[in-house]
């Protein structure tokens, strides 16, 4: 049986990298005595996978990891044990059993919701100017990969947005193709405003990860059931 956990990564723990977070979870599973399944072989490892790495320095209230269990545990008991043995800044929010045919978290992520908070606003009316930015026929950015650089129109990958005085919420395409990082959108927006972007003037919070269903986007948290 497979379980999906939703968790946060906040405060000082935003400085912990992805590999370190994975190792943290492996040890947490043991301390909390979660009956996690192990792979076969000379050096068995836990069957544990994460949805999407979070950048160092970014916070989140919508991280996901899938695990496989050898026996079932009550969701509330598991959450209590994981919170007792874990750190407050990485809080386990849900522990849900996945339907048999569910695709794993990593493969099912289609979009991510972000909230960007501006400590120093780049323009007078964020809401108005971001709307104008979005009204451009296309938003072309230079996307660098290890192998190449190419011009890319990211406008289709910005699924939705809403802005307040000093925050901007974005729903962006993500996954294995056309993964769109919020930094890419911000760089384009600042260039549009003709303002230099100092990455320390903003902070980034991932709100949730989503997959696509018949009813449109749904949170990865809505796939499973509590036990």
């Amino acid at each position, binding site marked *: 049986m497979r379980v999906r956990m939703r968790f946060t990564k906040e405060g000082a723990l935003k400085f912990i990298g992805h*590999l370190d977070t994975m190792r943290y979870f492996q*040890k947490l*599973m*043991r301390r909390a005595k979660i009956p996690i399944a192990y792979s076969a072989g000379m*050096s068995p490892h836990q069957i544990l996978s994460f949805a999407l790495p979070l950048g160092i320095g970014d916070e989140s209230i919508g991280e996901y990891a899938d695990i496989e269990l050898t026996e079932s545990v009550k969701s509330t008991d598991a959450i209590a044990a994981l919170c007792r043995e874990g750190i407050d800044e990485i809080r386990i929010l849900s522990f849900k059993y996945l339907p048999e045919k569910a695709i794993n978290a990593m493969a099912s992520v289609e979009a991510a919701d972000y909230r960007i908070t501006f400590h120093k606003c780049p323009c007078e009316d964020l809401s108005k100017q971001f709307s104008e930015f979005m009204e451009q026929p296309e938003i072309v950015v230079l996307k660098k990969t290890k192998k190449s650089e190419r011009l890319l129109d990211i406008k289709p990958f910005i699924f939705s947005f809403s802005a307040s005085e000093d925050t901007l919420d974005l729903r962006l395409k993500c996954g294995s193709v056309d993964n769109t990082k919020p930094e890419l959108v911000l760089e384009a927006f600042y260039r549009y405003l003709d303002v230099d972007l100092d990455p320390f003037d903003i*902070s980034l919070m991932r709100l949730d990860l989503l997959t696509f269903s018949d009813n449109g986007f749904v949170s990865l948290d809505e796939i499973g059931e509590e036990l």
Partner: protein
Amino acid sequence: MKLALDDRILLQVEKPARYIGKEINAVYKDKERVKIRFAMCFPDIYEIGMSHLGIQIIYDLLNRRDDVWCERVYSPWVDLHKIMKEDHIPLFALESQEPVKDFDFLGITLQYEMCYTNVLQVLDLAGIPLFAKDRAEEDPIVIGGGPCTYNPEPVADFFDLFYIGEAETSYDALLDLYLKHKQEGYDRDTFLHEAGKIPGIYVPKLYEPVYHPDGTLASFEPVSDDLPKTIRKEICMDLTNAVYPRKQIVPYLKVTQDRSVLEIMRGCIRGCRFCQAGMIYRPLRERDEEKLEELAREMLENSGNEEISLSSLSSSDYSKLPELVDFLMEYADRKKLNISLPSLRIDAFSLDVMSKVQDIRKSSLTFAPEAGSQRLRNVINKGLTEENILEGAKDAFLGGWTRVKLYFMLGLPTETEDDILAIPELCNKIAKLYYELIPKEERKGRVQIVASSSFFVPKPFTPFQWAKMERREDFLKKAETVNHAMHEQLNARSIKYNWHDAKVSVLEGIFARGDRRLSAVLLKAYEHGALFDAWTETFSMEPWISAFEETGIDPDFYVHRERPVEELLPWDFIDIGVTRQFLIKEWEKAQNEIVTPNCRMQCNGCGAAAFQGGICYAR
């Protein structure tokens, strides 16, 4: 809790997780409810410092007291060092993120001589005057501990106190004395003077060295009659009931020891004549096997670690090793854990165990003959014969191993060209054995023999403490000789030989047996930019060359001089139990190539029986 460094800094430096604390099992207390703030420092980067068991023991020991909050401090890496210097950010402790300067104590462990410039870095970044004599009433008491305090003199001027020996015994007395003085009107000098009467505590500024015109020590005496002339090391005789950290801190970063460490015993029965640890931790004391089982279970449950490792100087000498290993293998199998077993002698038992706990194809066997010839192994009292090595290698090859690592030292006392050439010959014999033993069709490629050599550094409290150390050029010539001869062996293509430069070894030699005058050199070297000298990527010889030139101190005096046994040595005021007479006898036996049996075979009257326990009374 607010972090000491802001986001802008943390996101600029390599591995910000080094500086945020918050690890599982880290201890957080209400600072208003404790009476003593203690900062415990390992003067190297986080990943090295966090891997050290001694710090975890002291952290646990001190935090058991409700009136003390012990926190951790490590050396900021060079990137952060630069930022902290430029922006005047004071060094802080990981837990509270508060400046070390406001603490009552700053403890610094001295694990190797090449961390000495990092000690100055820690004091400098903390904003604490480097020299003890310049410190004010409100500055923390700076206390040193660890193996290098068996000759603390080269760093004596930078410390208010040294704790000589094992931490389990005297810390309470020291902290209680401090509290008493705090209540009754604290005066730094009065406190330090009184602390000097506690067993194991050495107050360097209350002892005065006097030198002969030739630079050797004439006398070394306390400045007042109420202080002890010699300081006996502290030792914990009942390891089974001693405190042991059952909830070890679990770092986020992958540290050097990413596993639970179970210390099975202290001390060593072997008596290798170059080995300081083998002398200063005498007598050998074991922890009960049942206790170790209990500790192993608790440590693993409290940390969630996936691996456990045994720690001791020579695990094969633990009397109940088979029972302990049986327990661990069964437990590890049930809980899907890994076991790592360093410092095992290669024999039928250890090969059997290793074949069960690790993947033979991926692991290698390690031998530490230290010297190539039997003659020289007798000189150093390394009780490992060529026959032992070849027997072990034979069993290993038949068991499926194809990789062998061998460790040697160059520049040992009495060493000749023949002894050096015996190193490649021994490597060749092992390779030859493989090809004779394993038929062609069963071989999976070549056998891989990796030989490494380090340069011998004489250390205090060893029978070689009087020996002269070789010059860098001679070391390198010797390494060249070995390298050349390796290439001429019949099986040269199966053998790889590694050696390092000797610059650091020579510096290590200077500070290992140095005296108080060297503090001037350390200060200059630090001012010229020496830092993280134990790291090849950051080590530079230039600051050291300038430091010796500017202070007019001749490094040769400390390393390239054979000391007469009558000479008063800077560390002679310390009593480790093992007597000077025993060390002299061993030094003479070394020159006559006579081996000394180990402590289990017979008592050799080294003096450690004075502690009234351990192996001395077990026989």
